[in-house]
């Protein structure tokens, strides 16, 4: 398999080698004396163009290149959770042990710990026949997640045993058509190849994110796709991190793709401290972090999102709901552009390669709620939420546009909201979700039958406000009739008392769907009563001065355990307006 060729040219992250024999496109190669990791991305006759995942300074033509005969793959097995990987699944913790605080090159470390012993509990019996994807047994990977070991071959189980094993110990043996093969707790998977499933389901269950704007106006479905484009400083990363922290996914894969080093450190420091509301255990117990910061090699940045989604699909196949955050896909697209430029390919729009749209679509298509292979029957999902960083915040650029074409939820971050410290700085009118209709039955059944109505009315008010604001800009608010002024008042309440949410506030950071429903119901009740009062000739000044308004404004600070207090405000609104009426 291994064939040694020689380097003939080096230009930055792209090198050219010759005489690699039967090496195939996307095969992994080892470049130079230091055995840097690279991947073949183009073959012209006897010349193999290779992108190198590490810094190439000092490498000379004439140095050897070894082909491994295998495409870029990840190791899938217990030990993935709680890990912190670089773009090609090398654990950064191990890199630190080997090289110190700065990442040097040529470090070869295994993605998973092959020495650690795991307690394997067999669920299948000797003599049973198994198929690819069947659950052979379980390993308690972290306190909250049970790692299901999936069969990698079909055939008859000639041996299987429970006990303590390392990854290199066989846990059993499968008699396949091609002969007996040992079964291990881990296997390798090619990152650029989607993992198979039996059937894809439509998205009908929402991902509860705890973010009122998202859950109310732009809900994301489990197994759906969402994109968050926004200029710098508008809160993409904070939004991504909040979604990772509070969404009700069982597994979180967080990819820091070409972003800041300190941001990843923040995630790394914070996640072990945040307790999952459901299990009471640290979030880190169900999280994998992948970081390829902006100053790490650009080719590994390109690979990082594939590494991430393959890990996500693996947990999906175990039957978990996974959400994957990619921050930011623009950096990934730029890595594509950079490599494409070095290959001297004909550029498409803004220098991006012509295959950008296809690659983006392929990536997002790996999301979904599926029935997995193998028995017992189980359902898993991968929800993909990608941040996009358009230059100058202008989403007419190719990465944003191609992303919008494939994703179903659009969370429009808005710089002017961010400047005003309205967070999350997601614009309610510009954002949309194509899942709203398919998710409505779920909301009606689980949250409140009037939820879609409340939401639509609230949205209509915000829309109306935008129209009225145009008039106000010309003639001032006093020129509007009282009723329209009342609409402005309520819309302001929706914006400030409901949509605005602080990711750093201990209580406000997360709002359950139930709390959201109660809050919105109160505001809409206030609206109804206020309009009624205006019709009776009560002055708007009196209405806006009611005492309960302050309470409505502070609803968000009421903890989840005291939802009754939120509910009580409804009656209070009625009471106060009733007495206004009497006066």
């Amino acid at each position, binding site marked *: 398999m291994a064939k040694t060729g020689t380097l*003939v*040219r*080096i*230009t*930055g992250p792209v090198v050219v080698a010759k005489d690699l024999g039967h090496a195939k496109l996307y095969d992994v190669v080892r470049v130079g004396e230091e055995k840097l990791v690279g991947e073949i991305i183009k073959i012209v006759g006897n010349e193999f163009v290779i992108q190198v995942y590490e*810094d*190439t*300074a*000092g*490498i*000379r*033509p*004439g140095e050897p290149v070894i082909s491994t005969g295998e495409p870029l793959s990840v190791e899938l097995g217990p030990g993935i959770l709680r890990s*912190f990987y670089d773009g090609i699944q090398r654990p*950064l*913790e191990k890199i630190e042990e080997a090289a*110190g*605080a*700065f*990442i040097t090159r040529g470090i070869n470390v295994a993605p998973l710990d092959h020495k650690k012993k795991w307690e394997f509990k067999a669920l299948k019996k000797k003599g049973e026949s198994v198929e690819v994807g069947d659950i052979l047994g379980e390993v308690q990977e972290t306190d909250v997640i049970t790692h299901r070991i999936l069969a990698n071959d079909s055939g008859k189980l000639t041996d299987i045993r429970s006990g303590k094993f390392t990854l290199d110990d066989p846990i059993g043996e499968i008699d396949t058509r091609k002969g007996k093969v040992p079964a291990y707790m881990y296997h390798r998977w090619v990152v650029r190849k989607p993992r198979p499933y039996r059937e894809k389901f439509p998205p009908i269950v929402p991902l509860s994110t705890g973010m009122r704007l998202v859950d109310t106006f732009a809900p994301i479905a489990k197994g759906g796709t969402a994109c968050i484009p926004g200029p710098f*400083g508008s809160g993409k990363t904070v939004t991504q991190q909040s979604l990772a922290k509070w969404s009700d996914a069982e597994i979180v894969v967080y990819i820091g793709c070409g972003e*800041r*080093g*300190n*941001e990843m*450190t*923040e995630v*790394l*420091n914070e996640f072990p401290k945040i307790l999952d509301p459901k299990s009471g255990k640290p979030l880190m117990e169900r999280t994998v972090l992948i970081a390829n*910061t*902006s*100053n*790490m090699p*650009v080719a590994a940045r390109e690979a990082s999102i594939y590494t991430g989604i393959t890990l996500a699909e693996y947990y999906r196949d175990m039957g978990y709901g996974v959400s994957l955050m990619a921050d930011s896909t623009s*950096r990934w697209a730029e*890595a594509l*552009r*950079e490599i494409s430029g070095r290959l*001297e390919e004909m*550029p498409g729009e*803004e*220098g991006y390669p012509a295959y950008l749209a296809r690659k983006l679509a392929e990536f997002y298509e790996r999301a979904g709620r599926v029935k997995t292979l193998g028995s017992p029957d189980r359902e898993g999902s991968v929800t993909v939420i990608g941040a996009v960083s358009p*230059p*100058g915040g202008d989403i007419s650029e190719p990465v944003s546009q191609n992303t919008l074409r494939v994703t179903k939820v659009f969370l429009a971050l808005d*710089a002017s909201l*961010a*400047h*005003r410290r309205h967070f999350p700085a997601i614009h309610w009118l510009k954002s949309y979700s194509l899942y709203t209709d398919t998710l409505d039955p779920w909301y009606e059944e689980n949250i409140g039958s009037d939820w879609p109505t409340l939401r639509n009315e609230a949205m209509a008010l915000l829309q109306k406000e935008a129209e009225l604001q145009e008039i*106000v800009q*010309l*003639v*001032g*608010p*006093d020129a509007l009739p009282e009723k329209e002024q009342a609409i402005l008042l309520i819309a302001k309440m929706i914006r*400030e008392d409901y949509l605005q949410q602080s990711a*750093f506030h201990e209580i406000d950071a997360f709002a359950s769907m139930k709390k959201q429903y109660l809050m919105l119901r109160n505001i809409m009740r206030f609206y109804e009563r206020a309009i009624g009062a205006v019709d009776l000739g009560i002055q708007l000044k009196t209405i806006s001065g009611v*005492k309960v*308004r*302050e309470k409505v*404004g502070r609803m968000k600070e009421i903890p989840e355990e005291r939802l009754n207090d939120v509910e009580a405000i409804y009656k209070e609104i009625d009471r106060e307006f009733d007495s206004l009426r009497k006066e």
Partner: protein
Amino acid sequence: MKEYKTVSQIAGPLVFVENVSGVGYNELVEVTLPNGNKQKGQVLDVTDTHAVVQIFGSTSGLNTTQTSVKFLGETMKLGVSTEMLGRIFSGLGEPKDNAPKPVAEKYLDISGAAINPYSRAEPRDFIQTGVSTIDCMNTLVRGQKLPIFSASGLPHNQLAVQIARQSKTKDQKEEFAVVFAAVGITHEEASFFMRDFEKTGALERAVLFLNLADDPSVERIITPRLALTTAEYLAFEKDMHVLVIITDMTNYCEALREIASARQEVPGRRGYPGYMYTDLSTIYERAGRIKGRKGTVTQFPILTMPGDDITHPIPDLTGYITEGQIVLSRDLHRKNVAPPVDPLPSLSRLMNLGIGDGRTREDHRGIADQLYAAYANGRDLRSLSAVVGEESLTDTDRKYLRFADDFEKRFIMQGSNEDRTIEQTLSLGWELLGSLPTEELKRVKVEYIKKYGAGSKGSSEAPAEKKAAQEGPSPTNPEKAAPKAPLKAKKAPSKGKRKSRK
């Protein structure tokens, strides 16, 4: 060491050498000109037969027949030592102050290596710059990279100098150093910095690298990297807290574009190379803290936005890498507000780590948000009142308008010599917010309004500070005092009522 006389082509800063062998990518090159002068360069592209060399300097005087090229067999390194403190170097690291080259303790690769994200420690030590708009609303922490987005004709150099001079942390005993990299700035600007460093005695704790406007532009690629290599050495091996000022990054990007076009690369936006983001990140990301090491590298790059356009690729890509930005505003500058920091587009992403109880004060986050929101609202109303006139605004709106004016005149405005403590800054913020009705203050916790708000015990805690702040340039003071008193009177009973109802 191999020497070649096989130059086949010279184009701009690039030299093509034929029939070479054993040349490494990014290797350092020494080129001897026909007149005997020597220039340094670096290998950009190498095959088994030829190499493309980028010369750090002028290529005039080169020819294809007499020029000789020597490949030095290693990548570019800088000899570093603590003796560099107090010295001035050229953009290529040669002494410029007529003193001998300091003896190197170590030779370090100038491109550095990425800090393992696992090894990073979160920056969280508050740096008090003494500038209210930064300390209160865009707090700087040690290990952060916070650029100043400026434009031609704005006083960014004054602000940089003020920050370098006033910056301090709670623990004053720690060793502190400034590394200053001038990238393509004029002699005048460079001497402004040097004079100020000398005057304040900062020079002996500073290392200066100067690439001036008339120095070769390709050198500009090297200068910031020399500065950061020095900074990393001082911080991570000598336990110092290093503040790196790089000015002007726009010139750096221009140089990058010049080389890219000489190499006939496919241009990206506005002719800048497609890899500019990655390239800039290898500069900006060299800031931070490392677990288990005492020192830190804090970066203050300065760039001028061409045409005041924040969406121009240079500020845009910078903003995507750095942890926030301080934006200077021409409007404020015209109004004679100094420093003209516009708080609305400015941001510090690491602010939350450095503020709050035990670091600055518990009410810091809330008051910063409230000031932002109120000022943003006031500014919006300004344009509205320009159309409809101030009379048709509501009472509250008029209060916001006045707030925005006061905020500019008293909070943003402080001049380049006033050094405010964080407590002074926060009290000033509360005082200004006192002119707004309490129910408008939704960003601050009710308990903090009671504790620190205008008329509370909190604000009287520091009467001296309050006075100092009022003594500042504030022509609106007399008008302000009048509406404030009745306002407070109105507020007090309502607060009481709310309490009793509970």
